[in-house]
């Protein structure tokens, strides 16, 4: 659906050159919610803005639904953009227009007739749950309501792709959840492919199917969300996972404070149902001390984490770890 090939974006500012995106390759399948996570300055916003060429790529190719976006002339680009909806961190609603006119905006741009516009706007209002706000002005809406209007506006033209540039970053956790579930519904019911830029791992965990981690303009790790949670390869990925509220205990645990071996175990899906801890305690001559644990509910399954201390004979501990590894538990010595 979306293919990014060798993408470069360079900014020039008074002879100062900044490579915001370097040699980036990514493939996003139809109907997926693809998260792109990174710290600020990682180049993720530049990347998503290259997808509809709000930012002109310096080099490389972007193909969306078999259309080579990078090769389009201005007029064809303008028309193609109607197929790519976008939502923003600060909603970007027209402050002088009411909810109805904001949602009707893209339809009016396409010169749809009034009757059709009325019908479509009513449909969309119902879909995002704002029927009673039809004639309200943005200044009277809460952040979540504003983003709902922005989403309705973005999908009004039935786009194939929806880009979200930090679409939930300005919202509180509860509102974020409700916006995410709306996006999830859009993906499921309308089959729209969604690309989400975010710096919140919670967003990725909640609705993304796949995730790419960006740092210094490059993708340093990309995988399904389950795999990233289970076996993060890079330090940054680790940090993002442990930055989530449920994981704060990990920060507090300092391996030097313990005599035994501190190990982080990750269980995915089915493995989470097996009583591994009691099994290893029975099979091997070791003691297991559970220091912290949590379960992350992902879009498709659950990933459980345990931080445990193994004490006992080194050989026995080694055997226990191998046993766990052989049973699909991800083991990582801290």
């Amino acid at each position, binding site marked *: 659906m979306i293919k990014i090939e060798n993408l470069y974006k360079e900014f020039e500012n008074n002879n100062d050159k900044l490579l915001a995106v370097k040699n980036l390759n990514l493939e996003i399948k139809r109907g997926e919610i693809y998260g792109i996570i990174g710290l600020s300055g990682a180049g993720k916003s530049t990347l998503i803005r290259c997808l509809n060429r709000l930012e002109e790529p310096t080099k490389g190719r972007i193909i969306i639904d078999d259309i080579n976006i990078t090769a389009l002339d201005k007029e064809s680009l303008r028309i193609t953009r109607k197929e790519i909806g976008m939502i923003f961190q600060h909603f970007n609603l027209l402050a002088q227009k009411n909810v109805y006119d904001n949602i009707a905006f893209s339809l009016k741009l396409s010169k749809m007739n009034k009757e059709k516009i009325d019908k479509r706007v009513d449909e969309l209002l119902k879909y995002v749950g704002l029927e009673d706000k039809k004639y309200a002005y943005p*200044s009277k809406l809460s952040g979540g309501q504003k983003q709902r209007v922005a989403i309705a506006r973005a999908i009004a033209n039935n786009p194939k792709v929806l880009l979200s540039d930090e679409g939930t970053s300005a919202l509180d956790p509860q509102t974020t959840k409700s916006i995410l579930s709306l996006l999830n519904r859009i993906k499921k019911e309308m089959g729209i492919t969604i690309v989400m830029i975010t710096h919140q791992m919670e967003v990725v965990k909640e609705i993304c199917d796949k995730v790419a981690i960006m740092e210094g303009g490059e993708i340093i790790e990309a995988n399904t969300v389950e795999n990233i949670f289970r076996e993060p390869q890079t330090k940054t990925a680790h940090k993002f996972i442990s930055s989530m509220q449920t994981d704060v205990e990990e920060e507090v645990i300092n391996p030097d404070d313990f005599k035994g071996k501190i190990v982080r175990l990750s269980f995915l899906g089915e493995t989470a149902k097996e009583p591994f801890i009691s099994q290893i305690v029975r099979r091997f001559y070791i003691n297991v001390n559970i220091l912290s644990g949590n379960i992350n509910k992902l879009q498709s399954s659950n990933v459980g984490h345990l931080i445990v201390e193994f004490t006992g004979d080194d050989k026995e501990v080694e055997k226990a770890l191998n046993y766990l590894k052989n049973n699909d538990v991800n083991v990582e010595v801290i």
Partner: protein
Amino acid sequence: MANLVIPSLIETLYMVFFSTLFSLILGFPLGILMVVTEKGNIWPKPKLNQILNSIINILRSFPFLILMIVIYPLSTLIVGKSIGTTATIVPLSVAAAPFVARIIESSIKEVDKGVVELSLSMGATIPQIITKVLIPEAMPSIILGITLTIINIIGYSAMAGAIGGGGLGDLAIRYGYYRFETNILIVSVIVIIIMVQSIQFIGNTLSAKINKK
């Protein structure tokens, strides 16, 4: 006294109305052009932007009285005479147009860049962005700008009166100053003050009323 003040008031209103109208016709598109042709904006034309900028600055540097004298021949060309109320409309409009351009420029620049970006992401054309986004979003500020313009033109028109333009300024100078009829001078000034006050009041009210922000 009323038979002196009322015709002068009507002359002033006539001058101010048409000068505002023509200065808007000249200055409004210029102001918009100043914004959209800027580097990094929706229709970047840096050269054109620079030229327009210089023209506006030059016109604005002229003292109004000098500009009027320079432009009076143009009045002869357009309205057939170089003296009187109708003739004054030409230099008034030309003098106020660059002012209007700056006012419109700064109003349009207040519009959140995000909504422009959004419009681009939705495939809006440049004319659509100007007419459906920039102008409507800037409207409360534009109305205040137009109010300021009208008040400025009232001031200019009083000056124009001094060199044969008619209106309240003319009346104040001829009767009040040259003939020492102070009461006419005072009344003329009071009428001008009332005009300015009411226009500012109407402008503020209107702007606040349409502003949904």
